[in-house]
């Protein structure tokens, strides 16, 4: 067993042993079974998968709870991630287990909740979400994402849970959250053959036409302690405002693509780089409106550069989001957001100095929340590309939900969204909870 895993598991066992009451623990099981299929614009089946997500909770007395969530995925089409998934971006303790090309097991979450005095802690593999923005991320960068289906699935399913220690301590009226994340797992991008493999030139180094390229294995940090991420969040509810101040010292989840042309073959080495992220969020309800905002400043961001010898240049990034939710119409939520990210474009960085995105979400519930219609549009103002997601979901019984959706990309092939113009799809999904 991996030493970190061993440490974490033995900590968990110790805690349970210490805190558990003498009574027999209470155990609860739940599970979800999903069947989903998606067809691309050309009529080609993109995925047809069966998922099984068991969840177990064990309560040891009032204060200690152990939760485990697993995932078994059988993708009969195997186009999203052809072949076995590489697990390259994942640390060994967060790896998935694959059986053939079609079957994948993943321990999604496994954590212990407990209380020590006023402190509440959750230790184990988990998801932690920061920030107030929906869809695009500024502060919500603690867990890496899987881009297996680009940004189309729910965040819940896209986030890769990490092993970490998450403690929350009340300080007066405020709460301080402390995170220690020894798990070195990063964003997971599909292989070039995958349906949602990134093809836009914006996301790879600028290369000459005749260059012979070799992509090395990513250089990943590997010291459990030294390379841990560390985060703090102070949150408070003041005068009707929900306020947070955030700090995260972490490895950026997307690698910087270093280019080495010193030899005949151009070598590209993806390297993960560290940065400090300082930011905050604020939200408040005003009558029918809810105002949400988020601001983040990263000290060390690495982008592809045409001038730099190493192919990447370091800069800082300031990003923010303003959002407004309107719920004045009954059963309806209308939510608009404006994102902006600004960098210092010195040293030939290929990204624009400013990037602006707009998003609009309209959701309406019908028939006592059994039928939900939703439209989410994200538009990038610089590339004039974007995605429109339409979704209709119907709660057939307490346990069964049917949903159908259409995901439509538009815009230039070089844009983040436009590169998937050909991947427009219709999807169907049935989820049964047990």
């Amino acid at each position, binding site marked *: 067993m991996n030493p970190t895993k061993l440490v974490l598991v033995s900590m968990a066992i110790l805690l349970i042993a210490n805190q558990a009451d003498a009574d027999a623990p209470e155990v609860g099981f739940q599970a979800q079974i999903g069947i989903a299929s998606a067809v691309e614009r050309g009529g080609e089946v993109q995925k047809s998968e069966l998922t099984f997500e068991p969840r177990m909770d064990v309560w040891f007395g009032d204060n200690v709870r152990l939760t485990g969530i697993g995932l078994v995925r059988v993708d009969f089409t195997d186009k999203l991630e052809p072949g076995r998934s590489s697990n390259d971006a994942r640390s060994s303790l967060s790896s998935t287990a694959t059986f053939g090309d079609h079957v994948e097991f993943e321990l999604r979450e496994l954590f212990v909740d407990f209380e020590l005095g*006023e402190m*509440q802690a959750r230790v184990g593999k988990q998801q932690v979400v920061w920030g107030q923005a929906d869809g695009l991320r500024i502060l919500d960068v603690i867990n890496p994402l899987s881009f297996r289906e680009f940004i189309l699935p729910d*965040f*819940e399913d896209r986030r890769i849970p990490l092993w970490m220690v998450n403690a929350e301590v009340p300080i007066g009226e405020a709460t301080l959250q402390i995170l220690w994340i020894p798990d070195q797992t990063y964003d997971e991008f599909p292989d070039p053959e995958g349906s949602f493999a990134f093809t836009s030139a914006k996301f790879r180094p600028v290369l000459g036409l005749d260059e012979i390229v070799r992509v090395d294995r990513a250089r990943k940090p590997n010291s459990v302690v030294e390379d841990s991420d560390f985060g703090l969040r102070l949150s408070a*509810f003041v005068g009707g405002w929900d306020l947070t101040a955030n700090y995260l010292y972490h490895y950026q989840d997307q690698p910087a693509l270093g280019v080495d042309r010193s030899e005949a073959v151009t070598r590209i080495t993806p390297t993960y780089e560290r940065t400090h992220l300082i930011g905050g969020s604020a939200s408040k309800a005003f009558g029918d409106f809810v105002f949400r905002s988020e601001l983040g400043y990263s000290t060390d961001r690495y982008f592809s550069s045409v001038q730099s010898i190493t192919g990447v240049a370091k800069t800082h990034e300031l990003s923010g989001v303003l959002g407004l*939710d309107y719920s004045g119409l009954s*059963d309806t939520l209308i939510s608009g957001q404006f994102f902006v990210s600004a960098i210092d474009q010195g040293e030939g960085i290929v990204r624009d100095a400013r990037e602006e995105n707009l998003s609009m979400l309209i959701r309406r519930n019908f028939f*006592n929340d*059994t039928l939900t219609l939703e439209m989410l549009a994200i538009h990038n103002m610089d590339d004039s590309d974007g995605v429109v997601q339409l979704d209709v979901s119907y709660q057939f019984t*307490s346990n069964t939900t049917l949903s159908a959706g259409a995901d439509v990309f538009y815009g230039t092939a070089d844009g983040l969204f436009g590169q998937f113009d050909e991947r427009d799809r219709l999807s169907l999904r049935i989820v049964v909870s047990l």
Partner: protein
Amino acid sequence: MSTNPTFVQKYFQLVVTRPWTVIVLSALVLFASAAFLPSMVMDTRSDAFIDAAEPALVYREKVEELFGLADPIVIAVTNDSSTGIYNPDSLMLVQWLTEQVQQLANVDPERVVSLATEANIVGTIDGMEIEDFFDESPSSPARVLWIKQAIENFPLYQGSLVARDHSATLIVAELLDEFEADETYAEILAIADRAPVGANDQLHVAGEGAIAGYLSAYIDADAQKLNPLAAVVITIILLIAFLTIRGAVIPNIVILGTVGATFGLMAAFGVPFYVITNGLTVSLIAMAVADSIHIFSQYYIEHRREPGASQQTLVVRAMVAMWQPITLTTITTAAGFLTLYPTSSMPPIQYFGLFGGLGVTLAWFFSVTFLPAALSLLKPKASRAFAEPAATGSMDWASTLMTRVGRVVLDHPRSVLAVGVVVAAVAVIGAAKVTIEEVRIANFQKDEPIYLADAAMNAAMDGVYHLDVLVETEEFEGLHQSEHLQRIDRLQRFLEAQPGVGGTTSVVDYIKQMHRAVNENRAEAYSIPDDAFLISQLFLLYSASADPTDFEEEVDSEYRLALVRAKIDNGSYLRNKPVVEATRAYLRDEFNAPGITGTLTGRVNVDHYWIEEIGSSHAKSVGFAFLVVAMVVIVLFRSVIGGIITTIPVAMAILLMYAWMGFSNVWLGVGTTMFAAIAIGLCVDFTIHTVDRLRELLRDRTGDVKTAMLELYPSTGRALFFNLVAIALGFGVLITSDVPPLTNFGTLVALAVVVAFVASVTLLPALIYLLRPAFIFAPSNARFRPGLATASIIAIGIVSLFVYTDSFADDAPQDATQIDALDGQQVMQAVNARDEGDRVTRDLRIELTDRRGKIRLQETRGFRRYFGAEKRTVIFYRAPSNIRDTAFLTYDYPDAEVDDDQWLYLPALRKVRRISASDRGDYFLGTDFTYEEIKKENKIEIGDYRLTRVGLETVNGYECIVVEGNPRTQKIAKELGYSKVVWRVDPLIWMPRSSDYWDVNGNHLKTITTPVIEQIDGIWTALEINVVNHKTNHRSAFTFSNVDYSSDVPEKLFSQRSLTRGL
């Protein structure tokens, strides 16, 4: 239940071939129910006899809460020397006792009243001085004299704290928890035992708290004596009847199973063990054995007929022959018991009926499962009691006796009838003398110390029973007005003139005392000042020099409400009836005036109300029980004449019992009210067995009628005889009880069955012999046939009908004029002021049904807690898994101008979302309740509506005040989504029992009903709330469970981090 004999035969065949399986299965039934036994609770409070929703009780509880009153345990120090208690020893004893009692865990030290805690009010040069009587220790004769003079100058304390003849003084200790009264009573007795008693001092312990406390110990002791005695008596009867061990052991196991399972189920359903539940044990023992007696008799008869038959064959034959009559008698006896449930208004009696009926059914169950199975395991064996007459040359004594009776009856049928008529006529005279009465202290034997203490206290003091009047004035400090005080004073004089009233107390007595004090203690100044200003000055002066909470038992802190207390020296319903009625009339005609109203309350008033109901509910239950058994018999014999003839012995039995009560002065009270219904159920068994047997005999007769009828006596007559002996002696055991109501109950039932038996073997055959009714003489080849099934269905149907309609029937008229005066705004304010507990934890099951009947189920757990006036609520969804961990948190601020704050945690986003609180008219997570309704929980934001009272309406039998609300502005209407709301508020609990809503366009939108409301930890709690949306036909049903107002609800639950973490 099929009458096809092959089915029954097959069933019993199966039982005897698989005896162990059957024994294990019936043992499982027993253990499964008996497993709950340890959770049985005792509830011997006298209030337990009153329906918790009885208006008089609810009102009294409100008043008790308002003035912080509780049932006290009273210690009397008496001294019959010439100086009475005015001697240092006695007074030091009072001080010692007071200090000791104050240290008890279940006693609020602030609420102990005695000479050692009270203060004198005297005038000084400065005005008024308040000095504790025991400010200086009463150890010196000088101080004793000072105290004596002080009391003599303080009319309020005379008769209430110190006997007017100085012979006694009281230490009154209020209990914190009535349920622990028994321990506290024991502790106080122990204190009394070791008290440093002076030469002529005597100590008595009594009071309502003591009565409740001692009663449980008393009953425990009684039960420990009665139950084994009943078992022994039954065993002896069985031994005599069968002269075999098996005949005694197996029925005893059936009894054990019946009693264990019945009480286990009682515990399982959370029904407490009340005072009279003791009688149930003995009743069950007596009844459980009846089936066994008939089955064993038949078994031995079968054995005599064919001694060589295998045991299994014998058992099957006996069971096949007996299953019909025992099933039928089970139904009739159960029906008799069950009629108590819908017809009585007293929970202990209702449950006595319910579980008595259940017990009889369980006895039947064990008799047709365990009994044949166990019996089949033994070897065939004859009973000497059933030896062949030819072999021994004679019948046994019992058969001989019965045959002789038969001869006499059939030889002189007319004389038998004549005697019957004469007896009935005399009985009618006696029955007319029956009176309704209840005296709680009479639950004890007359030589019990507590009985003596009660008598001694009531003799020496003004009385320890209370009739109270709650006086309400409209304005703040209304009781500073002289005219109101004069009115109260006149009320006190009126009360004091009533028989049995020894004295009265109210705040007026204090005012007079203070008034005199500030007037140099002049006697003529013992009066109410004319000036409201002076009155408030007096109160101010008092509070400046003494504890201002001294008056909290007499007046509220706003001086708006006052309690006038009349002390009555007896707890008799009959004696207090004229006092209660006269006072009610006085309040209505003389006292009530604009600005001031008086409402009658107090223990005596509560007792008056519910005992008054005993009479009507008794008539109801007797009539109903009669109706049910008559119906069963009519359907069974398919003959109205048959029904009438068969019930004549039953009627005789009941009539004679009333005569007994009338002649021997046994009153119709709590203990005796239930005898008749039960006796009817038991008595009819005798007539059914008799008639059934006669039909068989006369149908198959070869010779003349008389000879055929004579055969009844040695066979069925004998079995009935032992059945009678078992039941009569079983119930008779109750006669040895130390609890007089149980003694009476046992006597009456035992005598009733004796009469029923006698009438069944005399009157009934005589009548049949003379009348030759067709239902017996007409040839018929079946005895019961479909009648049995039909009869049981009808009986059960009628009982359930009554159970159902009863919930509409027992609403007593509202006796609260002040409620009538409230306007719509005040009604809803009262609704908002309803106590909903400082904190609560509960589970909520949500059932959502759409117009096509499709149902979605959700389970949540919710917490609510007040932080000052701010209310925080959090709801966590727990199932199904697709919405699990969804959580809703709200902070509801008291200031209506400040928007509430709300958050929703959505597991799919893993994010707490702030949500706008102005959407309060939006539907909450797919239910038909709006966010506003979820937050407010049966309350409203008063400022949203213009409220008008529009009348009264009855909802599910509860009289409700109808209030219409119209949103004050168009904006509010839009926010709420309503243009009009109508609430029907039950003023007894201040909760809407139903409400209707109209949308902004004026269309009827939805109806909310609250069918199940219960009191939990003293807080009225809606356990079921249903809403139907008339536009969408969608329904939501909320069912609450595990409601807990006492456990801690930590503040951190109401935080965003707890939303994220989930439960």
